[in-house]
C-alpha cells in the first residue's frame, strides 16, 4: 500500500516537473512553478523558510519521503533501476560516512565561496534540470515542431514551431556525463548516488534518523531470508544485526512487500537519541546569510573605449537585375562583451553567481532564445544573455517568474521594463548610415524606452518647429552630405538588445549591449 501511494505520487511529480522543465510556452509555469520551488536546494538558496520548514517537518514525520517522491533525480534513478529485470539485485553495505560528509562540506564551502554552479553540479534538482534541459528539451521541441507542421497542413494554429539549437556544448557534455555516472550507479546499486554523493540526501539523512514513522523490523519474526535486504535499493537493511540505517532509507516501501513473515512494518519507533535534529540545518542557513553584496565593478566609461569587435564588412546592397528571390542573411555573431549581461531580476552578477545552481529552467523557458548557459568558469552553465537570435522582449518576464532559487527574482512586466541590465554601445565603423548615404534607424524604431535618437553626424544642426533637422541658416540638410546616425541615451537604455538584434549589419551589429554588474532601476 505504502509503495503504491509512493509510486503514484512519484510518477505524478516526476512527469509534471519534467514537463515544467521542457515547456517553452509558459503554460506549465503558470500551474507548476511551485514544483521547482519546493525542491530543497532552490528553497535553501532563495531562503524560502516556509518550504524548508515543511520539508524538515515532512522528513521528521515520514523519513526521506522527499527523495522518493519530490526529487525528480531520485525518481529518475528508480526508473533506470526498474529497467534492470533482476531479482534480489542489491545487498547491504555500510554507510560511507566520510565520503558523504566530505562531499557535503565541500559543496557548502563552494556555496559560501559564491560558486553556485560548482556546488550545483551535484545538487539533485539542478542536475536533473540540466539533463532534461539539454538532452530532453530539444527532442520535445522537435516533436512539437513536427506537430506544428501537421497543424499547419490543417490550417490550425494549435501548435507553433520553435528554433532548436545547441545552446552550449559544455552544458550538454556535463549533463551527459552526470547522467551516465548516475545511470550506471543506479543500474548497479540503486540509490548509491543519493546516499554517498547527494548533499541533500546527506542533509535529510541527518533529519530522517529521527523520523517519527519508520520501517520497523521485528527481529523475532525475521527468518533471516534477506529478501528485504536484497531488494533494498538504498542498501540500508542490515539483516545480520536486524538494523535499518534510517539516514539512508528513502521510505520506498519495497521491503514491506517483500517480507512474507510480517517482520517489517511502517510505524512508530521510539526515538533513540534526543539530539536536536534541526541543529545542523539552522547552522547552514546562517552561513548562507553571510553573503553580502558589495559589488562595485568599473562603470561604463571604460567600456566604450574598448575596441573589442572584430571588423564587420558593411552590408552592400546587391544589385537588382531580376525579380524575386531572397538575399542571403548571414548569422549574427556574439560580440565580445566586456561585461556579460545577466537576466533582468538577477539583481547583480554576484547575486546570480551565488544563487544559481544552473538548473537551466530559465534557459529552456526563454521564449526569445536570449538565454543560454554561460561557458566561462566563473559562471559555468548559469544563464547568460545574448541577442543573436532574439532580444529581451518588453512583454516578457518569464525567466524571473520561473527561477526557483532566487537567482532571478520575480519582476512584474513594468519593473522589468524599467530595470537596466546594461546599455547600448554604438560602433561607428559598422553603422550603415554613418558610412553610406543611406537611411536606416532600425535601432531607433525598435527601442522600447526611446533611448535611441537619430541625429545628424556633427554639430551645428538643430530641429526646427516642424521637427525637421536644419542647419544654422535654417536650411533643410542635404541627406547625401550629412549622415543621420543613432545616439544612445545611456540613462534611459535598459539593455534589452532590441537594437543589437535588429541591426541590419551582420555578423557583428553596429550597436551592441554591454552588461552591468549591478542592475538598477531607471
Amino acid at each position, binding site marked *: 500500500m505504502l509503495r503504491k501511494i509512493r509510486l503514484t505520487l512519484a510518477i505524478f511529480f516526476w512527469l509534471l516537473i519534467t514537463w515544467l522543465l521542457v515547456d517553452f510556452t509558459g503554460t506549465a509555469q503558470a500551474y507548476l512553478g511551485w514544483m521547482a520551488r519546493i525542491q530543497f536546494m532552490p528553497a535553501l538558496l532563495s531562503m524560502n523558510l516556509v518550504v524548508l520548514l515543511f520539508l524538515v517537518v515532512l522528513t521528521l514525520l515520514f523519513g526521506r519521503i522527499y527523495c522518493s517522491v519530490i526529487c525528480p533525480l531520485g525518481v529518475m534513478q528508480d526508473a533506470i533501476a526498474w529497467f534492470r529485470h533482476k531479482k534480489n539485485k542489491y545487498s547491504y553495505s555500510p554507510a560511507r560516512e566520510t565520503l558523504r560528509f566530505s562531499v557535503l562540506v565541500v559543496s557548502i564551502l563552494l556555496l559560501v565561496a559564491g560558486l553556485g554552479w560548482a556546488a550545483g553540479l551535484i545538487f539533485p534538482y539542478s542536475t536533473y534540470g540540466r539533463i532534461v534541459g539539454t538532452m530532453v528539451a530539444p527532442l520535445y521541441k522537435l516533436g512539437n515542431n513536427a506537430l506544428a507542421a501537421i497543424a499547419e497542413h490543417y490550417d490550425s494554429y494549435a501548435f507553433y514551431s520553435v528554433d532548436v539549437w545547441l545552446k552550449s556544448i559544455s552544458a550538454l557534455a556535463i549533463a551527459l556525463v552526470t547522467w551516465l555516472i548516475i545511470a550506471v550507479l543506479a543500474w548497479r546499486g540503486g540509490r548509491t548516488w543519493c546516499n554517498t554523493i547527494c548533499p541533500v540526501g546527506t542533509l535529510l539523512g541527518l533529519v530522517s534518523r529521527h523520523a517519527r514513522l519508520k520501517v520497523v523490523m521485528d527481529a523475532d519474526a525475521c527468518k533471516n531470508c534477506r529478501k528485504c535486504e536484497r531488494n533494498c535499493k538504498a542498501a540500508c537493511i542490515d539483516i545480520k544485526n536486524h538494523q535499518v540505517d534510517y539516514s539512508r532509507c528513502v521510505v520506498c516501501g519495497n521491503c514491506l512487500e517483500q517480507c512474507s513473515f510480517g517482520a517489517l512494518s511502517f510505524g512508530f519507533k521510539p526515538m533513540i537519541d534526543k539530539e536536536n535534529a534541526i541543529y545542523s540545518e539552522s547552522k547552514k542557513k546562517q552561513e548562507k546569510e553571510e553573503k553580502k553584496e558589495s559589488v562595485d565593478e568599473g562603470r561604463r566609461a571604460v567600456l566604450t573605449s574598448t575596441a573589442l569587435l572584430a571588423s564587420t564588412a558593411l552590408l552592400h546592397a546587391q544589385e537588382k*537585375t531580376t525579380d524575386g528571390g*531572397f538575399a542571403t542573411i548571414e548569422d549574427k555573431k556574439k560580440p565580445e562583451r566586456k561585461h556579460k549581461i545577466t537576466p533582468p531580476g538577477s539583481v547583480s552578477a554576484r547575486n546570480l553567481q551565488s544563487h544559481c545552481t544552473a538548473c537551466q529552467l530559465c534557459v529552456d523557458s526563454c521564449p526569445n532564445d536570449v538565454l543560454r548557459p554561460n561557458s566561462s568558469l566563473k559562471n559555468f552553465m548559469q544563464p547568460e544573455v545574448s541577442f543573436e537570435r532574439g532580444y529581451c522582449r518588453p512583454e516578457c518576464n518569464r525567466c524571473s517568474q520561473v527561477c526557483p532559487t532566487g537567482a532571478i527574482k520575480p519582476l512584474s512586466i513594468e519593473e522589468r521594463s524599467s530595470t537596466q541590465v546594461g546599455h547600448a554601445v554604438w560602433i561607428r565603423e559598422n553603422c550603415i548610415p554613418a558610412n553610406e548615404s543611406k537611411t536606416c534607424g532600425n535601432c531607433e524604431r525598435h527601442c522600447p524606452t526611446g533611448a535611441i535618437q537619430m541625429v545628424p553626424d556633427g554639430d551645428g544642426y538643430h530641429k526646427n518647429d516642424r521637427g525637421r533637422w536644419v542647419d544654422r541658416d535654417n536650411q533643410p540638410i542635404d541627406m547625401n552630405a550629412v549622415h543621420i546616425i543613432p545616439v544612445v541615451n545611456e540613462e534611459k537604455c535598459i539593455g534589452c538588445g532590441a537594437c543589437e538584434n535588429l541591426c541590419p549589419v551582420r555578423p557583428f551589429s553596429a550597436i551592441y549591449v554591454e552588461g552591468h554588474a549591478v542592475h538598477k532601476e531607471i
Partner: protein
Amino acid sequence: MKEYNRRDFLKVSGTVAATTALAACKKSEGDINLDPMGHHTDEVPTDKMTYRINPKTGDRVSLLGYGWMRLPNKREGNEEVIDQESVNELAKYALAHGVNYFDTSPAYSRGRSEESLGIALEQSGYSRDKYFIATKLSNFSSSQWSFEEGKKMFERSLVNLRTDYIDYLLLHSVGGGGMQNLHDRYLDNGLLDWLMEQRENGRIRNLGFSFHGDVNVYDWMLEHHDQYHWDFVQIQANYIDWNRNGDRSSSGYYLYNELEKRGIPAVIMEPLLGGRLSKVPDHVVAHLKQRKPENSVASWAFRYIGSKPNVLTVLSGMTYMEHLEDNVRSFSPLELVSEEDQEWLEGETATLIKSYPTIQCNDCKYCMPCPYGLDIPGIFVHYNKCVNQGNVPESQQAKNYQEARRAFLVGYDRSVPRLRQANHCTTCRECVPHCPQNIDIPRELQRVDRFVEKLKQNTL
C-alpha cells in the same frame, strides 16, 4: 475561419450546381455539367476559346493570355527553382485549350522565366506559328542602360526562348522613374530606334510597351504614336481601379480609352490584382455568389475586363492547374458582362472590396530581392490574408481578439521566416521605385511591424 481559395470556389460551385441541376433536371448551355455526385461530366472546352484579331498583323489572339510570372516552384536542396515538369504540363494544357499568347520577361522568376517558357513551348509539340510569344526589354538596373547591354538582353531572350523572332516585344514598365528614366533606358541610347529596325526586319512582329507609374510618360508615349507606331500597349485594368471619374493617374478607364481612341489594342495585366480579386473576404464572396452562384469569384474579374472590345488579350499568371481550368472556362466562350453588371462591379463591388484595409500588393515580386533579405510580398500577402479572414483585430475588445492574435502571429512566423519579417526593414527605399503599384513599401512594412508589436505586447 478558412481561407477561400479558388479551388474551394470550384468545389462549392460544383455542389451548388449539382443541386440546381438535380432540381431543374436540365442543363443550359454554358453551365458546368455535373453528375449527381458533383463530378464534372464534361471536359473543359477545347474549342470554344474567344479570340480577338490584331488589326495590324491579323493575329488571332486568345482572349486569355498566359502570364509566365507566377510559376510553380519546388525546392531543390536549399533553393527554390521552377517546377519545370509542372509548367510543361500547364503550357501543353493551355495550348490544347486554345490559349496561344504567352507573356514573359528576362526579369521574371529570378531571371528563369524565359528559359522555362522556351522549354515548355518547345516540348509542347505545337509548331512556332501556333502561339505568340511576348517578352520585354527589362533593363531596370542602371548597369543595363547602355545600347550594347539592351541589345544583348534582346538577343539573350531569343536564345532563352528558343526562337528567332518575338511576336510581341515590350518596353518594360515605362513610367517608373518618370521621363528621365525613359530617356535613360530607351531613347537617348538609341535602343528604341534599333528595336524599330528589328520590327522592320521581322525579328519583332509587334512593338509596344507596358505602363506603370507616371501617367505623363504614358501621355508622352501616345503623343508620339505617329513616330513609333505602337502595335499594342499593356496596361493594368480591372473593376477596382477602373475609376471612371477618377484622377487619370489612377484610372484604368483613362488608360484604356486613350488606346481605344487611337485604335491601339490593349493587353491587360493584373486583371485579378495578383489574386486580390479572387481571395476576398467572405462578405464579398457572398455578394458576388448571390448573383451567379456557379461562377468563381475570379471569373467576374476576367469577364469584366474581357468584355471591353479593344482588349486583345487578358493576362493571367496561372500557377496551378485549377486556376488554368477555371480561367479557360471563363473565356470559352466569354460571356459578356451586361452593362448593369459592369456598373455593379465598378461601383458597389469595388467599394465593398476597397473598404477592407488590405495592402495593394499583387505579389509580383518586382521589389525582390530586398538587399536586407526581407520577404516583402510574403509579409504583405500574410497581412492581406489575415485581413480577409478577419484576423486583423482593431482592438483587444474585438470579439475574436485572442484567436485572431494567435492566428496572425503564428501564421506570420509560418509564412515569413523571422529574419525576413518587417522589423528588419532599414527604410533604405531600394524597393520603392520597383513597385508597379506605387506602394510606399517601407511605410507599409512599418505599419505591419507596429501592428505586430502591438499584438505581441497586447497593447492594441
